[in-house]
């Protein structure tokens, strides 16, 4: 195995890793700005300097040359090398700032130059707290500034496009954003304009930066130059909780981080997953935070003579039980949803299977040609493959409509899926039938329902999804409902404010918590009222039931999903059916 010595410590490597990535992979901190593992390497920030040398190999004796003390003779490169562009070779010796004064000085020098024209107004910069430049300046930067002249002034608050705003003065010209549009989104919308210390990224004159992936440039910007038009100046990073999740706006299921403060989701950023989305996600997935906060159904609602009125959970449970008991199992139509999680879908099918309703139907929301072959799929719902895995009957929109309007159907139970809003049925089709809707957001369908059961959305409970490529992933609760407590639920993250604050602090309110429960919990309550528990006490119980009953998910649990960062499943053959 090839070996490399970094700061006198021996490491082994295979292939031809780049020294910087190798150091990062081995937990060695090293400053850098322009390097990004998923982009090309321009080596332009000149921050990741190391001293590098290779042993002198004597071809005649076929061995390394040794000095008097028996150590290998190392021939160092005459100049400092950028670790990001340096390929490791066998026997290479690397000295970083830990062992080399020269490298330490070089890191200071480059940071001094970067800061020469960079505004030093971190307290009012939106990037503060998650700014590589700020962090690395504290770690490796010079103590003070020797620059006593006027800084270069450049335009501020440039609206590059509908979602991205540029502060050109903060730009350190790492070209990550330009390389992103060239290499990843391939829209080529950004370039660097002007020269020297006057340069900054811009679009071509008269063009907008309206790339479907434009907000990724905000994530990879190592300073506060590119900010999200929507999120800028809304919150400080250290006030927010960062919780892993899965994007549900799309069949791809991009891995995301959900950023919450006081139980409001403030932004969504992509989370690295090599199998699914690498470091990226489409812009519209980030807009989804509104759905999590706004227009939520809180407390059950029942239809009383045409008026929707809020009801107690007891009343909702009674209404549901009576309506189901009123009809024969053969008169009940259960509609699953490719929008909802495996847990919700399984719970509803498990409950009705007991009553003797064996068939659960669902209609996918796939628009052929609406995807882009990258991270936007034709499938608009995150769990179509999940419904298939559970053995639901996949029917077309027309077929579902004819089932709903069938005279023999007296009660319809629908899991969150805006059937009316997306034109599968219209409100008139439901006339004269009992229609119960499990949903988290108000929509056309919930308006038409006789009973609305408010259920948790993807960021309020553990929800699992199988994406278009057959990868099983799950979310972690990020947002409290009025029945959950971040400090008691070990899965939920605690931010600074949660950890050090009290409930009397003025930044804590209950108004952002929604009165809702997971589908399985509602059905478990109903079952218990009928003296026959489904055995669901937590999401894990539901998933256990799924993995022991569904063959393709056998032996999988939440730990395994977390460990593998998503489990690749065999996708059933009916995938091609639309």
């Amino acid at each position: 195995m090839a070996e490399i010595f970094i700061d006198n410590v021996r490491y082994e490597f295979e292939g031809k890793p780049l020294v910087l990535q190798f150091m990062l992979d081995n937990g060695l901190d090293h400053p850098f700005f322009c390097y990004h593992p998923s982009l090309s390497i321009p080596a332009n920030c000149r921050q990741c300097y190391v001293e590098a040398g290779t042993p002198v190999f004597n071809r005649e004796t076929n061995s390394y040359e040794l000095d008097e003390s028996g150590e290998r003779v190392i021939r160092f490169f005459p100049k400092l090398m950028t670790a990001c562009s340096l390929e490791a070779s066998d026997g290479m010796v690397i000295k970083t700032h830990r062992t080399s004064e020269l490298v330490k000085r070089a890191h200071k020098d480059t940071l001094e130059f970067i800061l020469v024209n960079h505004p030093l107004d971190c307290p009012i910069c939106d990037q503060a707290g998650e700014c590589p430049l700020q962090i690395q300046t504290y770690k490796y930067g010079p103590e003070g500034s020797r620059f006593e002249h006027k800084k270069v002034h450049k335009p501020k608050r440039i609206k590059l496009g509908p979602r991205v705003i540029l502060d050109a003065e903060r730009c350190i010209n790492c070209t990550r954003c330009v390389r992103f549009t060239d290499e990843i989104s391939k829209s080529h919308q950004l370039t660097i304009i002007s020269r020297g210390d006057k340069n900054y990224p811009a679009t071509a004159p008269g063009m907008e930066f309206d790339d479907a992936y434009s907000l990724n440039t905000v994530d990879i910007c190592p300073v506060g130059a590119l900010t999200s038009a929507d999120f800028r100046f809304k919150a400080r990073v250290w006030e927010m909780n960062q919780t892993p999740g899965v994007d549900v706006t799309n069949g791809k299921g991009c891995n995301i981080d959900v950023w919450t403060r006081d139980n409001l989701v403030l932004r969504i950023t992509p989370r690295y997953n090599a199998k699914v989305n690498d470091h990226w996600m489409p812009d519209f997935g980030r807009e989804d935070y509104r759905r999590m906060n706004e227009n939520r159904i809180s407390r059950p609602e029942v239809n009383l003579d045409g008026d929707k009125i809020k009801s107690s959970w007891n009343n909702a449970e009674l209404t549901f039980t009576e309506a189901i008991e009123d009809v024969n199992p053969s008169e009940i139509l259960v509609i699953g949803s490719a929008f909802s999680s495996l847990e919700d879908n399984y719970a509803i099918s498990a409950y009705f299977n007991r009553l003797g309703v064996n068939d659960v139907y669902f209609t996918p929301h796939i628009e052929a040609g609406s995807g882009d072959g990258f991270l936007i799929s034709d499938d608009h719902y995150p769990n179509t493959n999940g419904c298939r895995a559970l053995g639901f009957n996949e029917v077309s929109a027309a077929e579902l409509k004819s089932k709903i309007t069938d005279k023999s159907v007296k009660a319809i139970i629908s899991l969150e899926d805006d059937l009316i809003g997306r034109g599968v049925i219209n409100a008139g089709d439901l006339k004269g039938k009992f229609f119960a809707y499990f949903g988290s957001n108000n929509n056309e369908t919930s308006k038409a329902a006789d009973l609305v059961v408010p259920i948790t959305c993807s960021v309020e409970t553990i929800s699992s999804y199988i994406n278009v490529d057959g990868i099983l992933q799950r979310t972690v609760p990020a947002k409290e409902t009025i029945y959950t407590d971040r400090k008691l639920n070990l899965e939920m993250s605690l931010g600074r404010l949660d950890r050090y604050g009290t409930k009397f602090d003025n930044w804590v309110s209950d108004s952002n918590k929604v009165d809702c429960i997971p589908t399985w919990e509602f059905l478990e309550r109903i079952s218990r009222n009928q003296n026959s528990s489904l055995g669901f006490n937590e999401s894990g119980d539901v998933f256990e039931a799924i993995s022991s009953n569904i063959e393709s998910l056998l032996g999988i649990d939440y730990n395994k999903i977390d460990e593998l960062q998503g489990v690749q499943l065999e996708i059933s053959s009916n995938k091609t059916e639309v």
Partner: protein
Amino acid sequence: MLQDWKNYQPLLIPNIPNLHRMDVYEKNGGYEQLKKVLTDSEYSPEKVTNIVKDANIRGRGGAGFSAGLKWSFMPKPDGGPRYIAANGDESEPGTFKDRQIFEYNPHLFIEGAIIAGYAMSITAVYVYIRGEYRDWINMMQKAVDDAYAKGYLGKNILGTDFSIDMYVHSGAGAYICGEESSLMESLEGKRGYPRVKPPFPAQKGLWGRPTTINNIETLANVPLVIKNGSAWYKAIGAETHPGPVLYGISGHINKPGIYEYPTGMLVSDLINEVCGGVRGGKKVKALIPGGSSTPPLRGDQLEGVRMDADSLRTAGSMMGTAGMLILDEDTDMVDFLWRVSLFYHHESCGQCTPCRDGTGFLEKTLIKIKNGEGEMRDLDLLLDLCTQMEGRTICALADAAAWPVRYTVTRFREDFEKRVKNTVYALA
């Protein structure tokens, strides 16, 4: 032989009227060397490369790297396109020699480029000329058109199976595009950002194909070597840096201009005998031997210094492009250095941090000193900034910007000390 420079007959730009015309050039033995190389079976591509390598033509663009050696780095032909990029960007302040070749002897360069193309199995030559040379671009285009018309360029040249194309390309006014890798970026239609090496141009150059970048004057030397042999060439001028050179002499001098002489000329001969001495009979304060980025030499450092790489290195400078700038004793080196610094600040491409922000830092500090607001510590700051820039960037522009500062401040420190504020006062 160095003593008989007065009898030297120019080779690159001989005294022949209208030599830029095809008929005149052909009448004076033009394109004979090309014919010889292409038709004489004795001249294989390897042999041509070896002759040039043996002649030790050192690059005239500034770095002084052996041209033949550079050619030999090209990989074996694989059937795909291979390129020469002829560098006529010539934007180093004090340098104006390639212009003379474009104007007075373009066919010598074209012939040299084709021979180089033959030696390296090149498919196309790009002649990159600085954008401000509009007239010279037109002259060069005319010469290339003439060569096409005569069949020296294009398909199956002189009935052989060797084909080569030549394109004249105009720069757009960026100094950095004279750097070989950003010249390639510019030729490809991209922003003139130097490339990270490796890969070197011989492996991955223009459009990812093997490419050699040579200076215009370097290629113009090639037909002379082929005609007279490498031994003849090596006998011209300095031993380790042979050949004729176009000295572009400017500044406070009585007869500035381009002079063709062998390498290894005594600086004092060039100043006093060739150019008729310093203006107004004054003393030389400083000499910048090869374009503004080469370290300046003090007037009292010039004794016995010759214009070749070794002699200048010993003296503490570089040959560069042989664009000599002479400053007389009245020159204020602070003003001079600020102007040079302003140039590099303006021309930094902005890719690498040390150069992008370092050049501005240098220039702003020099303005401060120039305006009489500087302090003694600013001189040390300047030297410190140079250390922070030298060798820390992708291309050599940071070095080019730092060297004049470092060597002007150290070699002419008294000028700077006079301009800065006194920060230490005698108590009594």
